[in-house]
């Protein structure tokens, strides 16, 4: 296999509230021989909120981020579901509307850039599945996670709306997603089926609608617990932040103590590869990881 090389759009969360996600991304990429060139020029994608205030600005900024992947002639890899959705949504809108694309490019030209629409945009989960391959990943597993029941938590923005994602997420069915389950199996774990696995954790309304957000988080953790999960795993740092740190609000909202360790998918892979918990940043979790 020739070396896989991507332009990495880290998003903001991996550099701030989930440093362990950055650490584990780099640790597994190195093991897998995947080269990740960080897009240091990139800005925040607006996290699905900037466009509520200023849609055009959100388009310009996301198009600019893509420009820097295009300049490198690489596929952009994201490690955040919401980054993936926002970037992909921008790409889709510009690629199908030449007039809008021209308006955005007029702005980009002021700083010497042009959006062409040449780079693909993929979440790391799907880059691993489609490009690296789960069969290759399996061969690298030295510590199969066979003693664990692992609850996959997909996060909305990697699977919905499927119209936007289908070409970059292997046509995942939003109502019966498989990718994260398959990844768990490839790491030797047992994947837990529960109704909330493809539901929302409420992250994006945490400040504006705290009760709604807390109930959604509570339901998600409860669903995993009631189906005997030992821990949860997610490809999205925002879901992670919500599930890992908000268990007290969530418990209050659903009237029951809910708490589980939550791992980033990169950490799960790293554990199966035999990388130490410390290198994967498990010490940064608020819901303590007590099984390593």
């Amino acid at each position, binding site marked *: 296999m020739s070396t896989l090389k991507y332009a990495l759009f880290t998003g903001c969360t991996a550099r701030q509230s989930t440093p362990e996600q950055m650490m584990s991304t780099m640790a597994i990429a190195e093991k897998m021989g995947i080269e990740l060139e960080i897009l240091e020029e990139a800005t925040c994608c607006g*996290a699905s909120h900037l466009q509520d205030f200023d849609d055009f600005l959100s388009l310009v900024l996301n198009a600019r981020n893509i420009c820097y992947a295009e300049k490198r002639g690489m596929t952009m890899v994201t490690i955040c579901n919401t980054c993936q959705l926002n970037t992909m949504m921008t790409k889709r809108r510009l690629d199908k509307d030449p007039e809008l694309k021209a308006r955005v490019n007029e702005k980009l030209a002021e700083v010497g850039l042009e959006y062409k629409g040449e780079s693909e945009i993929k979440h790391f989960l799907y880059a691993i599945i489609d490009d690296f391959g789960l069969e290759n990943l399996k061969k690298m597993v030295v510590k199969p996670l066979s003693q664990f029941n692992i609850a996959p938590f997909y996060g909305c923005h990697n699977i919905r709306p499927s119209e936007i994602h289908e070409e970059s997420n292997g046509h995942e069915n939003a109502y019966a997603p498989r990718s994260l389950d398959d990844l768990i199996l490839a790491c030797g774990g047992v994947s837990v089926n529960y109704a909330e696995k493809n*539901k929302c954790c409420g992250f994006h309304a945490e400040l504006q609608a705290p009760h709604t957000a807390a109930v959604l988080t509570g339901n998600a953790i409860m669903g995993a617990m009631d189906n005997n999960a030992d821990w949860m795993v997610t490809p999205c740092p925002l879901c992670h932040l919500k599930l890992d740190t908000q268990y007290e609000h969530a418990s209050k909202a659903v009237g029951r103590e809910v708490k589980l360790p939550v791992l980033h998918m990169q950490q799960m892979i790293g554990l199966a590869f035999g990388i130490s918990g410390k290198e994967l940043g498990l010490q940064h979790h608020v819901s303590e990881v007590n099984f390593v």
Partner: protein
Amino acid sequence: MSEIKTQKITFKVFRFNSETDYLPNYIDYELEVTHEEVVLDILNRIKWGMDGSLSYRRSCRHGICGICSVKVAGKAILACKENVLSLVAAFGTELVIEPLSIKRAMKDLIIDKGDFWSKHDQIKPYLISEIEEYPETENLVTPQQAEALNEADYCIQCGACHYSCPALEINEQFIGPAAFAKAFRFEADVRDEAGNERLNIINAPEEGVWDCVKCMECAEVCPKDVNPIEKITQLHNMVFSAGVAKNNIATRHAVYFKDSIAKHGQLNEAGLVIYSEKGYGMYKHLKVGARMIAKGKAHINPFIVPKSDKMDEIAKLVKSSSSAKF
């Protein structure tokens, strides 16, 4: 003549009568299904051939009246449009058929859709306009002006999005995706003269657009590709551009992204919470914040933020591309 291939499928159908039953039960019906059958065909075959007491709604059989929506394996669908074997491919050979909303079930698959209609009432789903009683000419709408509706008028009011929306499921005050799409449909119409009347309704805390959790389910589920969340985003934009956005936690939260990007390229995550809460709401977050600091997830000084490269370029672009005002 080639033989028609069939597949044996078990349908577990929700049965309930709100007048006589405390709890629902699920009855299994086994049928041989062909590749061209839709869910409504199955319901008809059960009713006409196996159990005449099954109740459900149907009318046009052409995906246009919006009456036949039910949930199969948790997914809201139009019974007359959804192919059974494509559902089998996703969910297996045992399919659970339920009403759109179990808590609103009246008889089997029939629900009381009253809340759906009252949410529509709330947003004034009609053109608000001074109309001359005896006009001399037609009220012309150009194709471009009609395009501004962005296909919001394709909604057939089937309720699939409304009864799949998690924000509405938890907060019954929330207006919900279908009625928001309808509000947009009239706000985007050149003939409408509602001014701020309708915008103030969809801008209200708890009820309005700010309580959407952005799960994208309404876009996924809509059988008519109305994409309600896209209309919700456009309503947010209208609230700002009409100048009716109130200075509250939700609006500050959206606006802060621009300020932070102009300054750091990145979102200052701690700064977002502090600015949105206007400082004094911070007490709610102190415990979690302290835990995050202890674990190295947040900095004790919230103004330490990583910066993007090429900040000059970013600041320049933000300045020249942004026209939104708050």
